[in-house]
């Protein structure tokens, strides 16, 4: 019996590069994206809002179980798990995120699903599409490393 109903959201982050620099000014990690989302919930929905969202997801180890489950720094895709009754609130808070640290970012939702399996499928499709695009854009990417990180992150889940 499934007691906790969740929603898994696949989001991509758009980072506005100030110049035409090749290297990304910001590397997305689980920590900094989680921090940005939590700050946004706190600013917009207050302490109680934050507590309500994290309450069902907070494990004993506070640092360990974060909201953002999977981040791919190259394709900038994140998978976020939220409980079903709070997912619209968290989604609105994510939409209102304007920056991570000093760098302006914005999030765009690709897919919402109720199971991790459907979410994985959707995320894989998005990543493949983006990968095609990157291959067109720049020929010299460290391709094996990227595929490796993708697989490893998914296997962890």
């Amino acid at each position, binding site marked *: 019996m499934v007691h906790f109903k969740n929603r898994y959201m696949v989001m991509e982050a*758009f980072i*506005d590069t100030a110049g035409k620099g090749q290297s990304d000014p910001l590397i997305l990690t689980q920590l900094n994206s989680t921090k940005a989302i939590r700050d946004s919930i706190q*600013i*917009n929905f207050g302490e109680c809002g934050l507590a309500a969202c994290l309450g069902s997801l907070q494990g004993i180890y506070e640092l360990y179980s974060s909201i953002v489950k999977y981040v791919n720094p190259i394709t900038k895709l994140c998978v976020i798990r939220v409980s079903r009754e709070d997912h*619209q*609130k968290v*989604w*609105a808070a994510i*939409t*209102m995120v*304007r920056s991570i640290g000093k760098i*302006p*970012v*914005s*999030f*765009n*939702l690709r897919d919402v699903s109720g199971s991790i399996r459907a979410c994985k499928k959707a995320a894989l499709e998005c990543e493949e*599409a*983006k990968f095609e*695009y990157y291959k067109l854009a720049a020929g010299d990417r460290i391709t094996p490393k990227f595929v490796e990180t993708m697989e490893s992150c998914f296997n962890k889940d």
Partner: protein
Amino acid sequence: MPELAMVTAARAIAEWDHPATDITHLVTSTNAGAHTPGADERLAALLGLRPARHPLHARLLRLAKDIADNTHGLPKEKFLATPLSAMALAGFFDLSILPDDSKSTTTNTSVVARALDLGYSAVALDHPHRGLLTDSHAPIASSLRVSPSASLHRRRHPFLQYTRITLSLDSAAACASALAPSAARLLRTYDIVAARPLTQAAFDHLCQATFDHLDIVSIDFSHKLSFRLKLPMLKLALQRGLHLEIAYSPLIADAASRRQAIAEAKLLVEWTKGKNLIISSAAHTASEIRGPYDAINLSSYLLGLSTQRAKAALSVNCRSLVSKALRKKHFYKETIRIDRLLPNKQLNSADFKLADWISWDPMPHEVDLLSLELPAYKGEPQSLDINPEPSANEDD
């Protein structure tokens, strides 16, 4: 659908038995509805029934007859009457992209590129304007060149860009002068015309008086409103077919503008219940625009709109607004447009390509072709008993 239209046009011209160059006028008319039934059965029905049973087509015939009577000197005047119906699925629209303040160019290409990436099907580039319109304010028709491989999403329809102007009006007199018929020529160069009232008098006047060219009433919610929204005025505006616009960029910007925006926009949402409401981004930079589903969720969660209405506010309402606005600009009394064909223009079946229609009516639509000929203008008694009603969505 366009193939079917082409085939019937070709057949009609073949039956007609005159060289195609004899066609001197092309009279086209549009059907008001976006929900017409299947085009093939419609075509069959139209070809089978007499023309006068359709008030729209009867009007068309009468107008064609009037033109024929009044233009002398041309030996044989043949008319090809073609009604069109728009039947495409609504994509997502972002009807307000503001020019970038820091750059000097008038079109904001980075925002448009971001909108393309995010999955919008059409955008409108806004020119906010205060004061009198002069000729120097005509829109510069530079839009982003879109290559088909540019976007990750598979698109069924091309990415469309419209031009829009937002007039900030601070008194009833300003409304009257800015939207008067004398300014119509300039207003018609923009695809969409919006007005932003700054005072109570301006808001009341906009809602009450009928202006031909006004499409949207947009209120800037990021600052405290200096006037009140009144329910009877809103009802009048909705009756006249005006659309009301809410921009979501104040919700994303800093806390103060968010507070103002939610407080005022909630009232508007409650009173209109999402009818004739459109949601747009009012984005200056690419970081202020959000994807369509994000915007839907944001406005539905924060403003109290239901998700279905919010989605409609971003897609279907915008689409009907744009098609209405374009019809106002290009068609006479929203139904009939007359194109004079030059004598050397070959009117063969290849000319009825979809690209031809799209070049002047930039909405993705399917063309439903009824070809009627009027060889003799005297002996058509059934075309003369016309009820001059506005064009109906359903046929008899």
